[in-house]
């Protein structure tokens, strides 16, 4: 998850200024949160170009809705909610992804470095894992994918993630469990490879 560099008090001040119409303050908020929003959109299932476009939509909606932002929740959680809704809207407009990753995708596994270490090779492995993860996430139904993304990748609490997804906690926990189990099956070859090292 991308950690913010602005402290909470600074962020509250920027939000107050942006609410009063200060565009430069809002631009700072966009700069601070854009990588996080983009990453979440990609993980919700949008391709790079879609995520780039929709990230802008998210911030346009945030600007227009700033007056309605209740500071009981974090600004980032509020942005996640807008991003989640915009991603669902975009995904609903296109057919399900056709790129398929099979749980036993030997080519993908063969392409991985053979040892887990540190330094450049570990970073390569991180990127390989990220790509494999993107393919596996794309295989999950959208509601299960969103649960795993919000809770396990973006690091929201169960309360926050359920609120972003717009469901009760019990329903969210059920989605999360099913999503994790399906993702485990899809990533099993990678998990086996790691255990072997």
């Amino acid at each position, binding site marked *: 998850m991308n950690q913010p560099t602005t402290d909470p008090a600074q962020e509250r001040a920027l939000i107050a200024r942006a609410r009063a119409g200060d565009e430069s303050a809002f631009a700072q908020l966009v700069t601070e949160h854009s*990588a996080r929003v983009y990453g979440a959109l990609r993980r919700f299932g949008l391709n790079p170009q879609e995520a*780039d476009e929709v*990230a*802008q939509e998210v911030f346009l909606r945030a600007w227009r809705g700033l007056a309605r932002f209740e500071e009981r929740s974090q600004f980032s959680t509020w942005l996640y909610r807008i991003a989640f809704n915009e991603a669902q809207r975009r995904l609903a407009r296109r057919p399900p992804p056709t790129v398929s990753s099979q749980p036993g995708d030997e080519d993908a596994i063969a392409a991985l470095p053979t040892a887990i270490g540190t330094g450049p090779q570990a970073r390569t492995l991180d990127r390989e*894992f990220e790509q494999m993860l993107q393919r596996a996430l794309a295989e999950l139904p959208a509601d299960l994918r969103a649960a795993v993304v919000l809770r396990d990748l973006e690091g929201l609490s169960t309360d926050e993630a359920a609120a972003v997804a717009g469901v009760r906690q019990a329903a969210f926990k059920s989605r999360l469990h099913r999503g994790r189990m399906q993702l485990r099956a899809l990533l099993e070859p990678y998990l086996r490879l790691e255990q072997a090292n």
Partner: protein
Amino acid sequence: MSAYLDCDLRTQARARLEHHTAECPECRSVLDDLRHMLALLQSAPAPEPVADGPAIATAVLRRLHESADH
């Protein structure tokens, strides 16, 4: 198992699951996989943005002005 990993089980249910996984290699393997997968997910690098933050901010402000002009 998810609830167990999230420390979201009551004491009795937690003890039951621990007792079961101690005796059932299949469920123990699933639990180990899930634990390992969650650690990987938590440290997974975020997708790299096409544009950097200031570029997105500039694009957003441009679109704000465009919509205000119409």
